[in-house]
């Protein structure tokens, strides 16, 4: 199938601002799905609320646009009740880690076979530019006129500590890398987390004088480095990219099937 077949073209042009990184992530994601040759009917995309969350309206999968921060819990219901479906959950940084932080760590703990994608633009885009738990200190935002004092989460570390069995990071700039990582994440059995740095030129870029979308992408390029790379070794302040965790752990739905097998047997005896 062609890449466009995975889109609901009827709703294009989409609602994102010019140069919004979320569009590029959509671009990388449908290419991953296309390259994996997945059936559209076997994919459910569940999203919360935010600019990022609007992504589910644009893909021609089963799509569930839910409430702010809770996408993973709806997704848990979908997946556990129908484990044969592939469940993709793109989330904004606020959606995933402010209001949604608890569901994020618990889904990771259960290692339920869901692919969580954090579209991290370090800002609340949809509501107009408030800081998020991924903004980090020293950032300007509408709710931080004197710059932020909050430290940020490291999504990779948090997901790892919580129990995710696949954890990776890339950016809207590194499109091919992103597609490759997403392919692995989608095929991984267990809870996979992919953090993708994105850009919000409208709010973050403007407030923090990072210029237009292209210059923000330049920063994604210069501010990150592959794990294991010389660049990272030389400058550990760079944000590492790559696959950090890829392990085999009991997956929740499979474990539950064992419970059913046990219970139905016990029942008979």
């Amino acid at each position, binding site marked *: 199938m062609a890449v466009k077949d995975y889109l609901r073209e009827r709703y294009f042009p989409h609602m994102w601002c010019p140069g919004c990184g979320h569009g590029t992530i959509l671009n990388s994601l449908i290419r991953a799905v296309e390259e994996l040759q997945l059936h559209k*009917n*076997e994919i459910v995309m569940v999203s919360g609320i935010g600019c990022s969350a609007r992504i589910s309206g644009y893909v021609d999968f089963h*799509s569930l646009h*839910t409430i702010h921060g809770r996408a993973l*819990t709806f997704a848990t219901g979908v997946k556990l*009740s129908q484990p044969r479906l592939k469940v993709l959950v793109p989330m904004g940084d606020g959606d995933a880690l402010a209001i949604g932080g608890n569901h994020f760590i618990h889904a990771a703990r259960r290692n339920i076979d869901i692919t969580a994608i954090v579209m991290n633009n370090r800002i609340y885009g949809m509501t107009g530019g408030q800081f998020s738990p991924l903004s980090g200190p020293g950032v300007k935002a509408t709710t931080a006129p004197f710059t932020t004092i909050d430290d940020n989460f490291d999504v990779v570390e948090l997901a790892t500590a919580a129990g995710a069995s696949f954890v990776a990071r890339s950016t809207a700039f590194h499109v091919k890398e992103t597609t490759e990582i997403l392919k692995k994440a989608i095929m991984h059995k267990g809870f996979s987390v992919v953090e993708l740095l994105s850009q919000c030129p409208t709010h973050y870029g403007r407030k923090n004088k990072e210029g237009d979308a292209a210059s923000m992408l330049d920063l994604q390029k210069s501010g990150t480095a592959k794990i294991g790379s010389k660049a990272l070794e030389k400058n550990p302040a760079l944000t590492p990219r790559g696959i950090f965790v890829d392990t085999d752990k009991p997956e929740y739905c499979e474990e*539950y099937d064992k419970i059913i097998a046990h219970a139905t047997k016990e029942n008979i005896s």
Partner: protein
Amino acid sequence: MSENIRFIQGNEACVEGAIYAGIDFFAGYPITPSTEIAEHLARRLPETGGKFIQMEDEIASMCAIIGASLTGKKVMTATSGPGFSLKQEAIGYACMTEIPCVIANVQRGGPSTGNPTHVSQGDINQARWGTHGDHSIIALTASNHQDVFNMTVDAFNMAETYRTPVVLLFDEVVGHMREKLVIPEEGEVEIVSRLRTSLGKGVDYHPYLPREDGRLPMSDFGGEHKYNVTGLFHDMWGFPSNNPKTVNELLRHLVDKIENNVRSITRYKEHFLEDAEYIMVSYGSSARSAIHLAKNRRAKGEKIGVLELQSIWPFPTEMVREKCANAKAVLVVEMNMGQVTAQVKAAVRKPNRVFLANRIDGKLITPADIKRLLRVIQGRGV
């Protein structure tokens, strides 16, 4: 020992009703006095091939059942006061997206943490108005275990019929007390499943285009039809829209599909109601006291009866007006500050002949409590 007889708690009767109705999926978080519903389903569901999951909180539980319902499953969650408050945002989502689900709220004393192990009926209005924005809801209740079973089956049936969340408003006494339940044979009680679209592959399916009868056939996630579901106002495709016409039509549809069906939804019981001069309107465990009193007084020749409500929302205004038309006085017996009383007053022709017989101290209202008030109303003193 008959296979179909059980001596169990009301919470377990609810579980039996859910199993009978065909529950596939339950997500919950423990809270007194509803916990036994989760505990029994944790065993019963895997035994029948269904799924039980204990989530990290009540919000997650509510959202998980909505997700599961979309794959075509019959779903339920159970909670009490504080948990019911937490679920409100997601209940509104289920209203807006018209996803069938059942929420049992075994009421305890409130507000706040309140009185977890004691009885109350304080969440009546919350069941109607707890989530933001205008909408309608179905809420059922029961006073004994046979009815807990029946109302639970009804709740699933109505959720599937009307594509809406249905709230089961039980209370601590009914939930925790043990008494007999006779489980009907298979087929004895009707079981309803959601209407599914008959459209095949390749034919355009409009998930939010009501048929002429107002119903919307569903399509299971994972099936042929891929569509969008959103809690934003949406068009017939399920795609977000704030077109005023679309918004207006959707909101009216959400309200009408319930309010226009109040007669079909209404559930009630009459106890000694013909010729009753004094009518006690009651529901849940307080109805047991009212019936007890009515029996005793009838034995003494007093013309007194009980109208037991089993559906609270949509409020059966006309039915109540009709039944109470000839009463000298109506006593609403409930364990709150008069939440159903206000509805009864709005329903009847003589609101000033409607009185509240209540108790709010965590103890079950007694027949003697009601009798005391009755004597006052009758002008016979205390």
